[in-house]
């Protein structure tokens, strides 16, 4: 008895679930961060890029003499110089066998395909000298017509790559009838046309920019046996593999290090021309080379996100029970097919049906090449688009049926008794409880009271109207089961690797292939391992982001780190325990079966004899007394490949106030109740949710990448591209319900993207809800005052007293009418931001 009592006292209280402060933060916030750009090497040279001002042009001549003669310039490289060695930047995910994929040179050779593409590279002894010399490179272009508008490009009016003969890259189709996971959608729609409800809508996913805090930077040191690459990337392991594969250099001779990385949001899930160029320059010159981009280079040339037209047809019975959903997407790839490329919209293919019981479903995605910056993953990648579309059109269905939008959801969603549930897209949702999350959210939100206030404002024709937006979302995260990725023709697997090393002093080193760039892996992994091995939190050191230390991995994206990478860590820790158990039994002269492991101590049942993990680690190190045939090591590796995705869900409620006289949108209240399964660290989760919410709200209200009619990105600075600050948002009320995932040990689900996926439709639904009585059923994102005002007055052509254009330039018809029109629309957004 006493023994167990002591045990209870000494047993550390569970780390998982504690709101630990992030152990990495003290260093990160006290100026001891090691960004790639901080790296200084002896004799290091600096790169600067000459970029095309034209969206589409033939390069007729490049005169580099003046630049070469400029002080401290070592070399100037053009596409012609490296044409033979540079190969093409990879597309890891050809979504169809016949995908049309233009070759993607890191330096344009004879033709530029978007404004900002690199045409020459200056290498100099200082960054300043390189930038100065860039201005001396004289490039002659022969302008070509540019394919800019997505819809026109889809009609092949102007070709982004004339040699390819078409802008259509690939058509990807999922049909529940052919897949056997549901019935035919066209039949359902036809049936609904007679007596039922058919709702057809087209939504716009504007072009966004990941806008990570740390601009991209890359340092390559070729002076050792191995070429060492430091780069601000989310994917050091994938980069190493692809550099070797594309540049024909032995993988064993390349070491990639992702030091502290300042955010990515998908924007650093890429192999970039800049990385390729720095690598080639360093190899040619035999000296360390560094390239760090400017902010506007980052906004112009780092990949963009979203940019889709979403055509939806929803069929339902008269009472609002959904019978079918057909999705037709146009996705803008930009001028090249990026690393994930067309795979991004395809990641949404299984999510449009969301939490609703559609018997029939069809998804068609046409990817299109244009002469704009190439697009790729941006926080949520495919799933925010899906969630936005379905949550918007469910509101439209509610309006059509004439019921509360929450009622239409309750009528159609999967109830908690029905889990595990196989969706019409063929995915098995392991767990969830939409009723519970919604109940909690409505209580926190004061749903009924706000609805009442809305009624009252409608009645009193209050110039400030209230709108309530709902988003009951789910997402698939934890990328990804390798089998599924294989079935989708993705170029790699979705496993993750981890190692746990027991040091003689009892300290623990955890190596993870999932390389963090701000998520707090060091802290969360330490909590998990501390619990697993029963060692103090402080004794666990998490190492990552260097292919020489954490040699295997699939890196960090798609909310996969905890559910895949974390599970690998657990499996490795369990192997350590198994190895230790044998040695403990030997040292305790007991049978393995008589041992019990708890609180970091192997005890012999029914006695007070036992050995702590640290003691066994030391004994193993000494190796003086090990059982025959047992290795003198407790260190263990594990590679975990998930059997399925994890499906976090939640209910987000948003209330906005709209000044119907100015179109200004002000957030009134935001409630987010997320079910992300077991929570390892509530503090980190809170941070992820808040950041995600702001990013999703920003798409709804502020952010848009705008190109002018010549294809120049006119939102190429943070003056015009409106990343919100804390001052622009409100305080969020967040809470959680918990239905543990059944597909991993801890029951965790991903949280990295949840907030970003759920919030956008909640906000836009609220905006539309506030002004629906003006006959409005959509406002295009970002919902700037100009667009809201235009929507309100679409019937009465600007109201009795139209605003004089001169007094409010952003209200000019032209600006407002042409929603893709350049900076003037940006100006509208600014005005909105300044309300």
């Amino acid at each position, binding site marked *: 008895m006493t023994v167990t009592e002591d045990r209870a006292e000494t047993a550390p209280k569970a780390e998982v679930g504690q709101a630990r402060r992030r152990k990495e933060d003290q260093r990160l916030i006290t100026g001891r961060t090691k960004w790639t750009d901080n790296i200084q090497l002896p004799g290091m040279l600096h790169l600067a890029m000459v970029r095309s*001002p034209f969206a589409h042009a033939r390069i007729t001549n490049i005169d580099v003499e003046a630049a070469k003669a400029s002080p401290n310039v070592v070399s100037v490289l053009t596409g012609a110089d490296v044409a033979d060695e540079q190969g093409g930047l990879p597309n890891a995910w050809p979504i169809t066998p016949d995908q049309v994929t233009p070759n993607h040179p890191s330096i344009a050779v004879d033709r530029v395909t978007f404004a900002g593409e690199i045409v020459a590279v200056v290498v100099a002894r200082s960054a300043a000298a390189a930038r100065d010399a*860039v201005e001396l490179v004289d490039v002659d272009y022969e302008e070509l017509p540019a394919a800019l508008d997505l819809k026109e490009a889809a009609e092949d009016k102007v070709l982004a790559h004339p040699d390819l003969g078409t802008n259509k890259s690939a058509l990807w189709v999922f049909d529940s009838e052919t897949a056997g996971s549901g019935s035919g959608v066209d039949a359902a729609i036809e049936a609904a046309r007679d007596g039922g409800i058919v709702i057809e809508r087209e939504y716009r996913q504007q072009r966004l920019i990941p806008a990570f805090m740390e601009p991209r930077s890359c340092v390559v040191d070729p002076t050792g046996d191995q070429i060492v690459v430091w780069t601000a990337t989310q994917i050091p392991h994938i980069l190493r593999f692809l550099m070797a594969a594309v540049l024909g250099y032995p993988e064993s001779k390349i070491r990639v290090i992702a030091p502290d990385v300042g955010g990515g949001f998908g924007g650093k899930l890429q192999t970039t021309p800049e990385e390729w160029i720095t690598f080639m320059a360093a190899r040619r010159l035999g000296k360390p080379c560094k390239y760090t981009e400017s902010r506007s280079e980052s906004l112009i040339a780092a990949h963009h996100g979203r940019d889709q037209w979403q055509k939806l047809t929803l069929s339902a019975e008269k009472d609002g029970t959904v019978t079918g959903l057909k999705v037709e997407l146009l996705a803008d790839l930009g001028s090249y097919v990026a690393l994930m490329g067309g795979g991004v919209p395809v990641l949404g293919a299984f999510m449009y049906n969301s939490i609703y019981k559609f018997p029939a479903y069809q998804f068609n995605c046409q990817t299109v090449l244009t002469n704009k910056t190439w697009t790729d993953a941006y926080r949520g990648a495919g799933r925010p688009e899906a969630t936005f579309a379905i949550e918007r059109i469910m509101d439209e269905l509610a309006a059509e049926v004439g019921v509360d939008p929450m009622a239409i959801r309750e009528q159609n969603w999967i109830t908690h008794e029905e889990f595990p549930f196989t969706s019409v897209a063929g995915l098995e949702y392991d767990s969830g409880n939409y009723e519970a999350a919604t109940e909690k959210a409505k209580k926190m939100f004061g749903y009924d009271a706000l609805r009442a206030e809305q009624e009252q404002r409608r009645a009193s024709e209050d110039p400030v109207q209230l709108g309530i937006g709902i988003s009951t979302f789910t997402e698939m995260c934890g990328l990804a089961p390798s089998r599924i990725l294989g079935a989708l023709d993705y170029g790699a697997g979705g496993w993750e690797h981890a190692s746990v090393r027991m040091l003689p002093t009892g300290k623990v080193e955890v190596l993870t292939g999932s390389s963090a760039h701000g998520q707090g892996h060091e802290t969360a992994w330490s909590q998990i391992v501390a619990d697993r091995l029963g060692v103090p939190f402080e004794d666990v050191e998490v190492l990552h982001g260097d292919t020489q230390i954490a040699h295997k991995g699939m890196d960090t994206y798609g909310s996969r780190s905890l559910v895949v990478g974390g599970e690998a860590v657990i499996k490795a820790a369990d192997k350590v325990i198994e190895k230790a158990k044998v040695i403990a039994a030997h040292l305790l002269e007991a049978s393995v079966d008589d041992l019990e492991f708890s609180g970091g101590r192997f005890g012999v049942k029914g006695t007070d004899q036992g050995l702590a993990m640290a003691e066994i680690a030391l004994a193993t190190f000494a190796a003086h007394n090990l059982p025959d045939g047992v290795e003198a090591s407790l260190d263990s590796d594990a590679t975990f490949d998930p059997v399925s995705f994890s499906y976090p869900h939640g209910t987000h409620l948003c209330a906005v106030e709209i000044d119907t006289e100015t179109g200004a949108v002000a957030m009134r209240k935001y409630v987010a109740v997320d079910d992300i399964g077991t929570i390892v660290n509530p503090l980190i989760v809170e941070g992820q949710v808040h950041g995600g919410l702001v990013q999703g709200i920003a798409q709804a209200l502020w952010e848009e990448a705008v190109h*002018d009619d*010549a294809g*120049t*990105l*006119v939102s190429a600075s943070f003056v015009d591209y409106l990343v919100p600050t804390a001052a622009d948002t409100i305080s969020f009320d967040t809470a959680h319900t918990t239905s543990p995932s059944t597909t991993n040990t801890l029951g965790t689900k991903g949280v990295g993207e949840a907030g970003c996926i759920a919030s956008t439709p909640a906000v836009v639904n609220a905006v539309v809800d506030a002004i629906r009585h003006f006959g409005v059923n959509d406002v295009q994102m970002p919902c700037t005052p100009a667009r809201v005002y235009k929507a309100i007055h679409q019937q009465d052509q600007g109201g009795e007293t139209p605003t004089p254009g001169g007094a409010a330039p952003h209200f000019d018809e032209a600006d407002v009418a042409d929603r893709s029109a*350049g900076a003037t629309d940006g*100006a509208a957004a600014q*005005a909105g931001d300044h309300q």
Partner: protein
Amino acid sequence: MELTHTFTVPASIETTWSAFNDIESVAGCFPGAVVTGVDGDDFTGTCKVKLGPVAMVYNGTGTFVEKNEEAKRFVVNAKGKDKRGNGTAGALVTATMTDVGGATEVNVLTELTITGKPAQFGRGVIEDISNKLLGQFVACLEKTVNDGPPEAAEVLTDAAAPVPDDGAGAAGPAAADETATSSDPVASSAASGSAAPAAPTPIRPVPNRQHTADDSLDLGATVLPILARTYGAQALAGLGLLALLIWWIRRD
């Protein structure tokens, strides 16, 4: 981007037509522009433009692609490239003249294509700028038509008058709007003043003083009344404060 402007020159259509055919004097009237060579219907020239911190020198060529004496219409196609790689500018200008009771109404249709940094940072205000430029252009043109060739600098000297003491007061949104077309001094000085909060142009209390020295056109200065209008209160507050400061410094 298409721009349309109409202005009236107080001279007979013939005088105006001939004036317009003297490309040097016409181009010389365009702020920042210098014609370096004329060969029949072709001409070469440079145009210096400053947009806040971005300074461009467009070297380019132009051609009269059409000269229609009867219809009193000519079409000029001009293309220029910044010698520091900051982008290109092209303009297809169609000018048509009609007699309106002795005076001449000139209708100018410009198809403007701008690439690179100026397009990135300045596109939102190009239309407003071009209106202001045309104001200067016409003023100069009137001189040309009435009393022969001008000194290109003259126009800018106007634009570069020092800040009047009432600079602050005159710079409300309405005032800025009106100054953008008429009263240049306040416009440009107000402009440079409000640079600090509103635009990338660094604070230079009396920037245009320098501009009289070099013959470049400071779009920063030209743009700022418009920016002040777009960016609203904060900008103007800052501007008021600055102008007041300048006035105060000047006094003693």
